[in-house]
């Protein structure tokens, strides 16, 4: 760990001779002050923050996982989602406190590098970037499945391809999204807000009907079933699998430098989005499993929700959920690609990645290299078509970060440096961050061995990169 008394400025340089950018002089409700007369405007409000959080998360939990989760854990998958939600909340609270003290781009990476030292920061930062890459790939495979289902609904069946048609479609969408981010329409955020509002409206209507139906209001018998039909252990392994559905709140922190009134909006957006999606997930799984029974639901795979909707509302219901699934997986993939690019920027600002990685394209004003460093590896991963592995590795890398975020909070509260002055303080200190750290790390143990090996390899690679590229760089907290 770097010496906390080493001075208030970041020091050292990387292999290319680049030094970390100076820290900002201060933060106001509306700007980050970057020197005498230079400011960075904050332009994302509470609605925008919630839309990033909810928009990133809701795609996976509702539209990809229900079938997979029901197959593994039966009706108890409801409990798996609830466990995920509780862990996410335990981490969202400490993340909020840290974010209000350090409202800067980079999120978890920034907090950890400034409180626990550069090596931890480098592992988490590179892990965050690659974790988002894995998550985006996972969303794109999901999106591919939805496009296939849409085509099937209209009578088009793609056959005779060397790989599954959803993989090819996922690749096409991945390339298109990356190109779109580089070529840039300026209204992506507004679009994201609209998509999230539409999704929440559609889902609320659909789930309300589903709950009433399950309760027997419409006179149908729901399938009676045993809660722990697959035993208790799968509840935890499923929780580890579906945790990918809870990665989005940390993406709010990656744009913390652009959130207006960060002291108020960051905690509200992060905690709020976790609570909203947890409720939606639990109700969705409940409705899905009671309409079909978990066993049959499991046979429908990634687009199981479409069959649930068809069963409840006929063909219009299926079309509605198909449409919603397209929007949701698209918005998740889009938000994750943008967050991955923001992480590359945060690392390159601190000289942990080359400065050229965050270069801005003069024609479009967009960071084409950083976006390419997200989009390129995403395409490779989409091609593997390993939905569960992609999801778990993404979760693994995030969970490591979450666990360390909780530790960072404990470190900062104990050390209490003069610059640490969060406007939001978590309730239940120190129990909440301790339980959050243990639970996040603990969940990893229930993953597929393959996911754990890949995740650990990414972390090891990150550390080696740091030792090779930026071993002299010392980052300091000073906002």
């Amino acid at each position, binding site marked *: 760990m770097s010496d906390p008394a080493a001075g208030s400025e970041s020091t050292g340089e990387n292999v290319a001779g680049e030094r970390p*950018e100076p820290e900002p002089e201060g933060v106001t409700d509306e700007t980050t002050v*970057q020197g005498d007369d230079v400011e*960075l*405007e904050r332009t994302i*409000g*509470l*609605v925008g923050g919630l839309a990033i959080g909810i928009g990133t998360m809701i795609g996976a939990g509702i539209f990809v996982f229900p079938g997979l989760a029901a197959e593994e854990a039966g009706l108890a998958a409801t409990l798996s989602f609830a466990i995920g939600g509780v862990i996410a909340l335990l981490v969202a609270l400490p993340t909020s406190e840290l974010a209000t003290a350090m409202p800067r*781009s980079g999120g978890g990476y920034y907090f950890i590098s400034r409180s626990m030292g550069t090596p931890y920061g480098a592992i988490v930062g590179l892990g965050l970037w690659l974790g988002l890459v894995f998550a985006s790939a996972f969303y794109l495979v999901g999106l591919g499945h939805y496009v296939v289902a849409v085509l099937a609904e209209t009578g088009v069946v793609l056959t005779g391809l060397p790989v599954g048609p959803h993989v090819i479609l996922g690749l096409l969408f991945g390339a298109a999204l990356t190109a779109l981010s580089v070529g840039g329409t300026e209204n992506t955020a507004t679009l994201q807000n609209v998509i999230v509002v539409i999704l929440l409206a559609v889902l609320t209507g659909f789930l309300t009907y589903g709950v009433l139906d399950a309760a027997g209001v419409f006179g149908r018998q729901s399938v009676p079933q045993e809660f722990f039909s697959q035993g208790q252990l799968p509840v935890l392994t499923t929780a580890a699998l579906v945790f990918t559905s809870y990665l989005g709140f940390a993406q709010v922190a990656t744009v913390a430098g652009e959130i207006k*009134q960060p002291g108020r909006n960051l905690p509200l957006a992060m905690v709020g989005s976790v609570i909203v999606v947890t409720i939606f997930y639990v109700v969705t799984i409940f409705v899905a499993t009671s309409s079909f029974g978990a066993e049959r639901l499991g046979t429908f795979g990634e687009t199981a929700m479409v069959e649930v909707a068809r069963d409840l509302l006929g063909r219009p219901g299926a079309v509605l959920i198909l449409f919603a699934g397209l929007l949701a997986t698209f918005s998740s993939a889009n938000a994750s690609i943008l967050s991955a690019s923001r992480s590359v920027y945060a690392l390159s*600002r601190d000289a942990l990645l080359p400065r050229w990685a965050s270069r801005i394209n003069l024609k479009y004003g967009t960071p084409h290299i950083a976006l390419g460093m997200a989009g390129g590896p995403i395409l490779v991963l989409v091609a593997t078509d390993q939905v569960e592995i992609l999801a778990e590795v993404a979760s693994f890398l995030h969970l490591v970060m979450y666990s360390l975020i909780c530790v960072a909070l404990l470190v900062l509260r104990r050390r209490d440096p003069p610059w640490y002055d969060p406007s939001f303080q978590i309730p239940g200190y120190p129990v909440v961050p301790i339980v959050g750290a243990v639970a996040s790390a603990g969940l990893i143990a229930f993953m597929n061995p393959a996911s754990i090996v890949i995740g650990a390899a990414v972390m090891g690679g990150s550390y080696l990169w740091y030792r090779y590229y930026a071993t002299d760089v010392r980052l300091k907290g000073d906002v």
Partner: protein
Amino acid sequence: MTDRPSVLVPIRVLEGESIPDGVPKLLADAHVVLLGYHVIPEQTAPGQAQMQFEERATARMDELEELFETAGATVERRLVFTHAAQKTINRLSHEEDCLAVLIPDTVTEMDDVLVAVRGTVGIDRLARVVDGVFAGTDATVTLYHVAREGESDADAQTLLDGLADRLVDNGFEEDRIKTRIEREQDPVDAIVDATVDFDALVMGESDPTLATFVFGLPADQVADQFLGPVFVVQRERPEVEEKTEE
């Protein structure tokens, strides 16, 4: 001369937008708040743009600052990287307590200035801008009002005379003040038509309404069609800013 009125001059500093000819001279008696801003798309973090462009932007700001200072103005400068230009302009106008925002355009001779007067609200700030910027020049100011339905010419004249008296009280030469009243359906069109004979325009900012949401602010509409600098007098902001947006 009394107080220098603060005038915000927003410039897209990295897109080759420069200070049009004549503007530094026009603002010689003002306190110029020079806002250099750079708008970036949402995919880009403001800090990213700062990392790459700050040096170039600062060099440019140095040049612009010198232009104004040479002409005689006092200058305060800010450089902002932003996703939303209008938000930045509004914020700075408020923070720096600016009486007016200048939408710059070329001005060769400063002989005739049109001052559009909407009503009594905000007339104090309007007077301070006209007095502060133009008292030290030779320009003639024409106080102009578009009468609404049911408003008599006498009422309109009283409004304009009130403003004229106030300017004269501050030492503005009386023979450099004219008044003019117009009746037409749409005030924006009327103002645009009237500006043909003038070198510069001073007008008020209007309250945000649905129409301004759809068609843009009247001041911007006018500025699009008028080939000279436009001073948009800012309405008084409440002390505690309302946090309603978004």
